């Protein structure tokens, strides 16, 4: 653990700012956030699924920002717009492929052990919110697929009572959620997920130290 920075006698001991800084220093010192050394067993290829998921999310956001800036007609009517729409589409597909591989990898590594249940649970919430974000994206495409998904999906939303507030037939509502609130939600959750991973470090292999491998 990194020692807290010394407090000068001039500092007010009840300073909220000081307490927050000290708490951050205790919970997430920089050498935990950006370590340059890792346990030797972290060399497995399965650890790559987490970082490529983040990389795909970056491409999803970058292509999505371009699409949002240029507006809905652009991705139907222009060749460049169509290309960015394709980039967004395939980045999302890659994001989900990598995320599911990461999820299965963490499951078979039992990544929740040794006080990491919250990290696992946050990951599952990210998966759920990502599905909702992608769903609103499919509804925002403004093509036949989005038309029929809206007509088809309204029954499940209405049966669950959600449709009274989350109207899949309302393009404006779905588009707003898709380009603003839900991506912010996914991003915040991903940052939180990374912070708790870095704060506690990666989990040890399943067998305890000293146990004879089977």
């Amino acid at each position: 653990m990194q020692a807290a920075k010394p407090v000068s006698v001039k500092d007010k001991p009840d300073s909220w700012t000081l307490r927050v800084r000290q708490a951050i220093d205790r919970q997430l010192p920089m050498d935990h956030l950006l370590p340059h050394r890792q346990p030797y067993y972290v060399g497995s290829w399965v650890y790559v699924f987490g970082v490529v998921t983040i990389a795909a999310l970056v491409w999803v956001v970058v292509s999505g920002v371009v699409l949002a800036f240029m507006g809905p007609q652009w991705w139907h009517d222009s060749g460049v717009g169509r290309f960015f729409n394709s980039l967004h589409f395939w980045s999302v597909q890659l994001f989900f492929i990598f995320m599911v591989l990461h999820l299965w990898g963490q499951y078979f590594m039992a990544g929740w052990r040794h006080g990491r249940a919250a990290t696992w649970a946050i990951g599952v919430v990210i998966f759920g919110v990502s599905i909702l974000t992608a769903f609103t994206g499919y509804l925002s495409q403004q093509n036949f697929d989005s038309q029929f998904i809206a007509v088809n999906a309204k029954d499940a939303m209405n049966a669950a009572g959600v449709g009274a507030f989350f109207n899949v037939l309302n393009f404006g509502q779905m588009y707003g959620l898709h380009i603003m609130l839900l991506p912010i939600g996914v991003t915040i959750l991903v940052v939180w997920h990374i912070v708790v991973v870095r704060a506690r470090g990666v989990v040890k292999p399943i067998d305890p130290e000293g146990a004879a491998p089977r």
Partner: protein
Amino acid sequence: MKSMGETQEEYYRGVRMVPYDLVKELVIALVGVGVLALAVSAILSSPDVPPVTIAAWAQSDPVDFVTTANGELAGSTTSAGYGNPYDTNSDGQAWGPIAPQKWFGTRIPIDSADMFVIQPLQRAAVGDADLDAALKTWQSATSDQQGKWTDAYGKALATATVTGGNVVVANGDYGPLPVMMSGLLGVAQAGGLDGLLQINGRFYQTDYTPALLFMGDGGYLSAQAEHWNLLGDQWGMMNETGRYPGQTWLWLYTMWYQVPPFTSDTGFLGLNASNADLGIIILMTLLTAALALVPFIPILRDIPRWVPIHRLIWRDYYAPRRKVL
């Protein structure tokens, strides 16, 4: 189990630490995934089948269009008898006392006969004396008389023919319906109904609820969807138009719509085809909660210990020990 208060230094005590460049790994991942996404986008493009318009529907299948419009007036379409959040004409789906469709009331009021047929006709009747007279005849008739007209006209539409884009039915007492439906069909075929169903009293609009509900009541949209394998019984929610992947991550949700009790009329424990949407949403909510709580659920949390996949993942961790032993 390690205590929550344990520091990383304490946790890793005795573990050999090796150099590891996280930032370099992230940059390589960004470049690699970017190149892959750019290449796939350039080679495969993306799906973009144009949306169906009401004009295309009215031109391609006028009988289905007129049958749907007549059904709106008769109150026999899906929208007309939907229940909340559009109206109170049915109770909606429920599982015992669990009836969330009723809990939040009519938050998106839709009078399908008025919104989809009468209001557009009133706007189209400006300057059209015959249509205006037909509308007045309809509105001054009793509901019993209206019902007789829609019933007779609906039966006649079953054997209707199309001549020059117009729907022709056998002679009968249909009141003003032939004039009204001919007027609505003409407006729709010209593309006017696509706009009239979007009128909300303001210049801008982004809500397609009325137009999509009206199209959903007909058979044309579903026929197009069936062609693209998008129907519910075709695993539609995870499919896409063309040969593209759709929302494949919805496979489990979609799967339940293909199996009993959600495909059965009799069902099990009160869950059946008629309340499948509600039952499947409840089931998926429970399964998602279970996934989040795997660390606390015996058997589920123990499977990784029993299945030696972790020995492949951490091959290096176990390999030296074998040599020692």
